[in-house]
Structures are given as structure tokens and as C-alpha cells.
């Protein structure tokens, strides 16, 4: 006998309690602290800050802990928190030329003012599991870095710009649109596209960037420069009438130098792709620069070859993992009603197919 299903509320409460228990795991094992996550899973923290669009390592670490290490879930927690925060104003644009670089490399010049600084990179590690880490976490002291100061590190693209070999990047003081306060509408200008890309899903952005390398809107990219480090954030305080430093953020900046044979409107020259992402997130920053360059086909007078990475509507409407995961997972919700109407329809269509009775509608 059917009894109307009740108890959704209790089921939810019990599910939450079980979830909390699973999150904690075996209580004989020491609990992870937020500080441990912040310090020892810092690249996860960086990704959560970047895609959560909120620079706060402690909150990002807390979100990772709460999300049991599911980074998209952690990003979601940060986004939902971020949206409730009041806005005091906007900072001045950060000057990445004043960055205190931990890492700065150029793939286009062997040596250059400021030098090449590898910094803390996985690049030349051999990917061999380090069983010593399983035994103890002892690390040898790294040599103290000599520290390169801001003035020493001009942007590589400036050298090309002096010769006129790379397209100009004219100074523009137009306030950028705000993706989080205005609905996304097409066509999106470059500032808006970059804003969407910097918080876009890393995997999606990587896949799109990779597709351009494999020929879907190829625009062969050189990493003109990749730099990671802290930049001061300044904000103008109306009562003071001048800008003061309110803190600093670590960012990864990637400028690509791309081949360009010229078009109807532009002379042959190198063109630019740009990536700027919170934290040490270089895979994302490089991907972002490649996708940015692919999306610029129209302003450079290139052909639209139908590649996904060129298609701003396709890229921008599908790059946000919080939107994507929500909509994808909503199909877990009950759909009894629409399914019921589909059941009726399929039964009707089958009845008609069986009796061979299809009306000639076009009569």
C-alpha cells in the first residue's frame, strides 16, 4: 500500500550528519587544521582563491577542509560567501611591473634585464614518488634567495614594443565592467572576457588552450614572460584624496607573444595574449593567455574558423564551473512531473507506431 512519502526534512538532516562524519574520517587520525591546509596545500588554496574570485588564503583553506578536498565545492563555498560581502570600492589597477617576483621566466629571450628566476617550480623535478615524505616531512633548508627588486624586472613585451614588432597595448582608463554585478551580455569586450577567464574552471580553460595548440584556431604562442610574485594593492581613499596601500596579493601573470602574419586591417607583427590569476597558478595563467588570444580574432581581423576557443559565447557561457556543476548536478533532483508527461507521450507515440497510424499533417 502506498503511503505518501514524508520525512524529506529528516532525511536531509541525517545526510548532513553522515556527511560531517565522513568529512572527519577516522578520529584516531589527527584532524587537519586550516593552517596546515593553507601552508601545505597552498596550490589548492590558490586555485580556490582564483576561481572563487576572493583573495583570502584562510577562508580558501577552510573551504577546502569543509569540502573534503573537492575543489569545485570549495570554490562554490567561497563564491557564496563572497557574494554577501559589502563593497567598499575598487582598488587602483595593480602594477605587475612592481612585482616582487618569486619566479620570472621568459621563453623568448635567453637573458634579459632582471634575469630568469626559476622559483619554486615543479618544472624540472623528476616525477618520482618521494617515499621519504611518507616517513617524515623533513625538508632541507633552501638557500636564501638573492631577491630581485621591483625596478629590476621590466616586462619582456616592452622590449618588442620598442621596435614596434608587437601590437601596441594602448592605455585605457575606461572602468571595466563587473561580471559579478552585471549580467553577462554578448558581445563581451576584452576586459570582460579576461574577467570571466580568470575565474574560469582551470580544466576547461586548459582544454580550450590545448585545442588551439593542436590546430583549432592555432595562434602559435610563445611564453614571452611568466611571472609570479606579490604586488601591492592600492586604493584611493576619498577622504584622503590619494591612494594608500591596503595589502598585497600574490598573482601569476602570463604574457604570450603570438605569431601573426597580418590581416586586412593589421600589419604583420607579434600579437598578445594575456593571463592574470590570483596565487601561484601558472597552468591556468598560460591557458588563459592562449584562450584570450584565440578570442581576439575579430579585433585582429582574423578569420573565424569555427574553433570552440574562438567562440566567445561558447567559452564564456560554459567556463564557469559553479554554473556548470550546479546545472549538471541538478538532474539529480526529482523530475517526476516532466518524466510523467514524457511517459505519456512515448506511450502515445508507440501506440501510433504499432497501429501504423500516422496522420498526414501536411494534408
Amino acid at each position: 500500500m502506498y503511503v505518501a512519502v514524508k520525512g524529506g526534512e529528516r532525511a536531509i538532516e541525517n545526510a548532513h550528519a553522515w556527511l560531517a562524519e565522513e568529512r572527519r574520517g577516522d578520529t584516531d587520525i589527527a584532524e587537519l587544521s586550516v593552517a596546515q591546509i593553507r601552508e601545505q596545500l597552498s596550490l589548492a588554496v590558490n586555485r580556490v582563491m582564483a576561481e572563487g574570485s576572493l583573495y583570502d588564503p584562510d577562508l580558501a583553506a577552510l573551504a577546502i577542509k569543509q569540502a573534503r578536498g573537492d575543489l569545485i565545492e570549495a570554490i562554490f563555498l567561497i563564491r557564496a560567501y563572497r557574494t554577501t560581502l559589502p563593497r567598499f570600492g575598487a582598488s587602483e589597477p595593480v602594477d605587475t611591473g612592481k612585482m616582487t617576483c618569486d619566479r620570472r621566466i621568459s621563453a623568448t629571450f635567453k637573458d634579459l634585464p632582471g634575469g630568469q628566476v626559476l622559483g619554486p617550480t615543479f618544472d624540472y623535478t623528476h616525477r618520482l614518488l618521494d617515499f621519504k615524505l611518507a616517513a617524515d616531512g623533513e625538508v632541507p633548508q633552501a638557500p636564501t634567495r638573492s631577491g630581485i627588486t621591483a625596478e629590476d624586472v621590466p616586462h619582456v613585451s616592452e622590449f618588442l614594443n620598442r621596435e614596434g614588432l608587437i601590437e601596441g597595448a594602448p592605455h585605457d582608463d575606461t572602468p571595466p565592467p563587473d561580471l559579478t554585478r552585471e549580467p553577462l551580455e554578448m558581445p563581451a569586450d576584452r576586459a570582460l572576457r579576461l574577467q570571466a577567464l580568470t575565474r574560469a574552471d582551470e580544466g576547461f580553460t586548459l582544454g580550450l588552450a590545448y585545442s588551439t595548440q593542436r590546430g583549432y584556431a592555432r595562434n602559435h604562442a610563445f611564453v614571452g614572460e611568466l611571472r609570479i610574485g606579490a604586488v601591492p594593492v592600492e586604493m584611493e581613499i576619498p577622504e584622503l584624496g590619494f591612494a594608500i596601500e591596503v595589502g598585497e596579493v600574490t598573482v601569476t601573470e602570463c604574457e604570450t607573444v603570438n605569431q601573426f602574419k597580418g590581416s586586412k586591417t593589421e600589419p604583420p607583427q607579434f600579437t598578445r595574449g594575456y593571463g592574470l590569476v590570483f596565487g601561484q597558478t601558472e597552468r591556468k595563467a598560460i591557458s588563459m593567455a592562449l584562450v584570450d588570444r584565440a578570442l581576439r580574432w575579430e579585433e585582429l581581423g582574423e578569420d573565424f574558423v569555427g574553433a570552440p576557443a574562438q567562440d566567445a559565447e561558447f567559452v564564456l557561457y560554459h567556463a564557469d564551473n559553479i554554473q556548470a556543476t550546479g546545472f549538471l548536478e541538478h538532474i539529480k533532483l526529482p523530475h517526476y512531473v516532466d518524466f510523467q508527461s514524457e511517459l505519456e507521450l512515448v506511450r502515445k507515440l508507440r501506440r501510433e507506431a504499432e497501429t501504423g497510424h500516422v496522420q498526414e499533417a501536411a494534408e
Partner: protein
Amino acid sequence: MTDQAYNFAYLDEQTKRMIRRAILKGLAIPGYQVPFASREMPMPYGWGTGGVQVSAAVLTPDDTFKVIDQGADDTTNAVSIRTFFERTAGVATTTATADASVIQTRHRIPEDQLSEEQILVYQVPIPEPLRFLEPRESETRKMHSLEEYGLMHVKLYEDISCHGHIATSYAYPVRVEGRYVMDPSPIPKFDNPKMADMAAIQLFGAGREQRIYALPPYTKVVSLDFEDHPFEASKADHPCGMCGAEDSYLDELIVDDTGGRMFVCSDTDYCEARQAAGHKGKDAA
């Protein structure tokens, strides 16, 4: 119970004002999809964030709130949304359709007739009725502004020529006041006629897609059809097994291992009220 860490109904007043402006614009241009700066909500996109934002913007402390999902008050996501507003707004909640001043719904319109004192808020996954004919938003917006709905009529015509009738059973497109073609959200087409001339305000929120649209009271809403193939609201051809209603939309349940079935009202409040009034279906205990 109310969570003091957040503003009334969770959203800050600026955001609510922005949403109310979009709602007013929507009411002024019935059926037109108004872009709005949808916020990240503490529940996932696709789980009713549009409806939640619209409800948050229209709720006042004196309101009585009802949430249904698939017609039922006790489905898990309806419970979750109702609890959210109990926590963040402290509003009274109810499961009785007639007692609610704001009803948020997913996929159904209540069976009971709504009144001028009520607001019905729909959760909308894909607000664009032309989306599956044309994936580009820039194109579909153009089609709406030019009133270019030929593509939709061709689709319906193709259905008829292939199947002898229009093969759309839910989210069946409607035309509003002879102007905008509108997605009614994924309600079964059985519910479509209830939208027309409804006394209550109908608001539609699509959070992920950042759109709000609306139907003011007593708006003309016509389901798309052809003269020789008129629209037909359909449902399972049974009475409700619990309350015996012949006029309500039914869910089909599988009740045993041999594929035995039973049909019950999807609107749980309607069904319970009828049972309380002494109506009895053939499967009722």
C-alpha cells in the same frame, strides 16, 4: 531560528532592489526576459537560485511562504528552500496553497485556483524557449526583438508531420499577449492553461542564465498551436488513487515487483485536502 548574520531573506537590500527593478520591468513587458545580475546563492545553480532570488526580493516579514517541487511540499529540495527562508527571513511557512501569499514552485502550478493576494514564483532552468533551436543567446535575443518566431512554428509543424501531433509534453511554449514567445518553465503542458488570466502575479527566475520574466495578473497566455491541430492539455487517463480526483495532474508510481502501478495527485496539498474532506480513491487505505 532566524540567522542574524545575514540580511532579511539573505540578500542585501541593494541586490533586492536590483532584482525588484528587473521584476517591475518584467511585469511591464510581459514575457520579455529581463537580464539581471544574478548572485551566487548558497545553493547550487540549477537548484532554484533564480526562484530563490525572486522570492527573497518579494518576501516581506508578514508573508506566508510555500515551496513545492514537482507539486509536493515534502520533496527534498522544496524542504531545503523552505528551511532556507525560515532561517534567513523567519517568515511563516505553510503547505496549504490557499494560506500562502508567496508560493515558489518547480515544475508545477498548484491545482487550486490562485487569488490576487498571491504571487507564484517559478524556478526556471532555461528561460529561452528558442534555445534548443538556436544555441546562441545573441541570435535568440535578436529573434525576440524582431518577433521572428518562424523557427518555432516550423519545429511544431515538423512534429505534426512526423508524429501527427506536437511532441512536446512539458515546457510547452506559450505566446504572451500576442507578443513574446515564452518558456513556461518545465511544467507539464497540462498546467499551461492555468497560466492564462491567472489572478495571481507570476514571476519567473532563472539564476544561472541571469534572466527574470513575469506575467501580471489576468494576462493573455496562449499555448502555441495550429488551427487544425489545437493545443491539448493532457494527463494520465486515470483518477487519483488516493483522493479520486479526475481533474488533477498525476504522478505514476511503481508499487510492486511485477510492475503494478498507481496514479496519485502530484499536488500533495490538493490531494490531502480532498482526502481530509472525505474523498477516497480506489487505492486509499
